[in-house]
């Protein structure tokens, strides 16, 4: 205990060594977001110099549109990872929420109700995951693997495997339209995502709920003893993840204009990767919405860049996997160093 007291007094002195601009530096030092951001700039610079097509308004607009729904789903996934869990059902939830919305639209329901139905689907799956993990205390890996299959299976059953097409213009506008500001045209999904970055950051950083989410993985007992309803907290987090994933799914369906039961297959890996690259620790307790946003951006940029540089699409998975591995090792190394 004495050793700890000594280290605490040492860290107490640290700010003085940082110089007059420490209020800028202090929050950034050791921040994962900074590392990811610098990496993003490097990748961006390399691609800008290496290809003629990367740094064009059209390409950038495509990238930002394409990673929006992955990022939104990753926000939810990162919360689940931060409480020490994992949600493998996100890909299936994206597909099923989009499909439910599409089916509602085919049944001539108004767009708003159709979207609500899609979100409800995601929320329901999340709630189921959360209840089984929180109240019944089953391991999240198994539970969400099961719900993934169930959701995907139901979608195949409902559609007979056929995609739903001919979605109304009002719905597709959500994913396909841009907000034009002078020479800049910003895709709507990107704007949705930016809004969620702000909301999510406020939720995680400023509210009591955020501090509970960060505490849950490592000090569940402290929360229990303090009278925090831990099981409910878990249900809430998984439900939030389901809702966010469904938002991503609806946006994706609106963009593609087609809802297929086979959509978003394998997306769970991309989503988890975005969360992990963005700094969400698989051991729990670490990560931020901003970091996840940057993580999703860098992944999409890499995908895009590999295509532009002329690599066959098959190599993408290997590149993404390598990056995940690198960031997991980084996380591990940092935890070792912190002791």
């Amino acid at each position, binding site marked *: 205990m004495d050793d700890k007291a000594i280290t605490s007094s040492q860290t107490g002195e640290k700010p003085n060594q940082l110089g007059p601009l420490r209020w800028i530096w202090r929050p950034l030092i050791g921040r994962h977001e900074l590392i990811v951001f610098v990496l993003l700039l490097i990748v961006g610079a390399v691609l800008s110099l290496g290809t003629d097509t990367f740094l064009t308004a059209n390409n950038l607009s495509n990238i930002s549109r394409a990673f929006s729904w992955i990022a939104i789903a990753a926000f939810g996934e990162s919360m689940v990872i931060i409480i020490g869990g994992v949600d493998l059902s996100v890909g299936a939830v994206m597909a099923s929420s989009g499909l439910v919305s599409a089916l509602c639209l085919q049944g001539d329901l108004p767009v708003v109700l159709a979207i609500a139905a899609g979100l409800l689907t995601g929320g329901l799956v999340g709630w189921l995951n959360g209840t089984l993990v929180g109240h019944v205390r089953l391991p999240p890996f198994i539970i969400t693997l099961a719900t993934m299959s169930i959701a995907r299976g139901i979608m195949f059953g409902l559609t007979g495997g056929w995609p739903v097409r001919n979605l109304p213009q009002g719905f597709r506008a959500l994913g396909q339209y841009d907000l034009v500001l002078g020479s800049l045209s910003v895709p709507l999904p990107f704007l949705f995502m930016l809004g969620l970055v702000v909301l999510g950051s406020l939720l995680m950083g400023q509210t*009591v709920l955020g501090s509970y989410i960060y505490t849950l993985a490592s000090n569940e007992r402290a929360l229990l003893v*303090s009278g925090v309803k831990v099981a409910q907290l878990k249900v*809430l987090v998984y439900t939030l993840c389901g809702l966010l994933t469904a938002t991503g799914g609806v946006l994706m369906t609106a963009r593609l204009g087609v809802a297929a039961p086979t959509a978003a297959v394998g997306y769970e890996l991309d989503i988890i990767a975005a969360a992990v690259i963005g700094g969400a620790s698989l051991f729990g307790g670490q990560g931020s919405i901003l970091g996840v946003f940057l993580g999703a951006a860098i992944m999409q940029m890499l995908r895009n860049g590999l295509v532009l540089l002329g690599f066959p699409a098959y190599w993408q998975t290997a590149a993404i996997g390598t990056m995940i591995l690198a960031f997991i090792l980084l996380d591990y190394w940092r935890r070792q160093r912190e002791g």
Partner: protein
Amino acid sequence: MAPLLRTINLSKSFGTLPAIQEVNLEVYPGEVVGLAGQSGSGKSALCMLLAGLYTPTEGDVYFAGRRLKSPSQARALGIEVVHQEPDLAERLDISRNIFLGREIGWPLVGKWLKVPNRRRMHREAARILTQLDVHFGSLHEKVANLSSEQRQMIAIARAMTGPSRLIIIDDPTLLLSYPCQQTLLSLIQAWQQQGTAIIFSSNNLDHLLAVTDRIVVLRAGRQVADFRTDETSREEIVAALVGTNYREQLTPIIWALDSYYRARKQAEALCHQQTLLERDLAAQDTLNQQLIDQLAKQVNALDSANVALQDAQRRLLTEREQEHKHLAREIHDQVIQDLLSINYELEEIEVDERVTSALKRELTGVRDSIRGLVDDLRHICGNLRPPTIDSLGLGAALQSYTHDWSRRTTIPVTLDLDANLGRLPETIELSIFRIVQEGLSNVRKHAQAGAAQVRLQHTSPRSLMISIADDGRGLADDFDLSGLSAEGHYGLLGISERVALLGGRLKLQNQASGGLLIQAEIPHPRVAQPGGEL
């Protein structure tokens, strides 16, 4: 009165291992119930059950008439728990931990979407920690960096954030030092007075006997005894703890336990004594400091009294000199002038032809005695006030005086004056004159000297050395300046007083060639150079 807490056949097993078996416990408001038991007897498991952290295998816990189901419900109903090991959120700071689950802030929607008001939480936390007499450098410190004792005190502080009806304390004293243990014991009493019920589990029988109303003894998960603290004894409790009633078998165990407790108590008392001693030492230090301060004050007072005394003496001397001056002037201007005019009148009578020669002789005799009288009076005036000192200065006055003295005493005096003597302030000149006067009179009275020497020399532009030397007897070996006044010899004493009043230094010593040497060094304002602008 209905019990606040009641357990009915409460049992808990981990797998096949029973931890608690059929415990029926009742706790009333404002009651302190002690839980005694050896390690592994199920005290902690019982505390967990009562806090809702364990789900009972069988039986139920009722609190205020409601069945307990979850820890959040328990806390909402007013049950606070302090565990053996503090459960803290490592990533959060001290005040966030104290208010964990009870954050103060602006509720946006519901309980969880609350934005904590850190400043208020810090203030409240500081208030609670002051009650606990625990102090941290900063409440922003993450609890991961704190010592076990500090963490445990934070856990105790957490139990004080809201209104509580039952506080369960599961032997946290293991992590606490002696003063903190005492704080906890007095807290328990304070809580009890507020009507809060307390369940206090402890391995320390002294603590249990000190604060509890009842002591429940657990052995191997079973409730084996329930004593009223006032009506039981240490031996009885120990017998229940170890589970035998045979006194013969019991004695060594009691003895061992008792001596263990006694040793522990002594160690604690020693520890306490040490802190008290340290405090005493500190108090003594401040007392000493105060005494020194008082002493310094008294010395200062004495100093100023001394200064005032010197001042008074200086004034006295000055006034005496003024009086002398006045007296001398009176005698000189009145008496001597009158005598001289009488003399003239007699002279005029003497030259008259009608006066017979016999009468003339008589008149001549009278005139001679008048002249003698005038001379005597002049001498007295000179002694009262050196006539030349005001007009011609110290040097002339000394020359006149030594010449006169030498004539009167037939002792030759050599006077050696500094060439740059100049004029000094009146009081200093007069004092120096008096010093020489008294020095020479000392030579005449005591020295039996054949010759004397007076020297005035500047040792620096701002100080003058007066040396009076003779070739007489010198000082006796056992000479003591302070003894002189007792013997009625004021000469040397007067010199030393005058020197002291002028802020100078006096040295009395026998010369190698015999005789006394008086040296007085006297500071004075800078002397104007002769021939300079004056």
